[in-house]
């Protein structure tokens, strides 16, 4: 019984997230689009929970919903008189994009359903936060360090790009 409710909840979450995803790329007002993106990110955090990735769900909420969304909404408010951001693209461009997305969806869906994904028998054991930390510090330590350098470079680059130039 409880499992049935959980499964239904997951499907409801998926439908909600898909609707919000389309809203975030269709809504003419960018501010509404950004809020819809926040809804998608929260729903995906819920799906992470359903997949047993609790720590990742928390990181998703902290980093994405907390930091990235704040940045995006700040930028929307700094650059746009919101009413004037409504410049829908041409009808032909919209139709072409829709058709190509539909074709992409159908093609990948076909590949996805016809592929026999290799599966560990009975599924993998859920990694604890300790396992994640050990994996991050042992097997993936090089990309981890590179990512640190990248973040540092982006910090300096963003400051340099956004700085007001001396007149």
């Amino acid at each position: 019984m409880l499992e049935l409710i959980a499964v239904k909840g997951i499907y409801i979450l998926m439908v909600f997230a898909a609707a919000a995803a389309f809203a975030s790329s269709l809504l003419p007002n960018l501010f509404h689009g950004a809020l819809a993106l926040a809804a998608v990110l929260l729903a995906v955090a819920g799906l992470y929970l359903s997949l047993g990735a609790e720590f990742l769900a928390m990181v998703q909420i902290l980093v994405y919903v907390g930091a990235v969304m704040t940045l995006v909404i700040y930028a929307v408010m700094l650059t746009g008189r919101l009413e004037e951001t409504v410049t829908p693209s041409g009808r032909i461009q919209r139709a072409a994009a829709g058709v190509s997305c539909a074709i992409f969806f159908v093609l990948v869906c076909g590949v996805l359903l016809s592929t026999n994904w290799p599966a560990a028998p009975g599924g993998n054991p859920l990694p604890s936060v300790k396992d994640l930390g050990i994996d991050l510090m042992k097997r993936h330590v090089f990309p981890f360090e590179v990512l640190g350098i990248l973040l540092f470079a982006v910090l300096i680059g963003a400051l340099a790009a956004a700085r007001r130039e001396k007149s």
Partner: protein
Amino acid sequence: MTPVPESHYLIFSLILFSAGIFGALTRRNALGVLIALELMLNAVALNFVIFSRTAPEGSASGQVSAFFIIALAAAGAAAGLAIVLAVYRSRKSIQTDDTNLLKW
């Protein structure tokens, strides 16, 4: 095992990715393109987590890859928004059609 069949999760993340592509293709505002980009990155990170449950030897590595994607997306958002602000300051517009400084 995942509570819902694996393929349903995969199709869901494909829907997210398609919505992101559609947004990136049709938005005229650079910020809209950035929002669509975040959507696509999130779909990819979700795929990594799905496969971390089922694929052999994927247990911790899949989740670590998702961490990397989240960190990269945050870095991309910060750099992209700084560029958007700089462009807005010099051109008074962030419509992608107006941004043709580097166009021959």
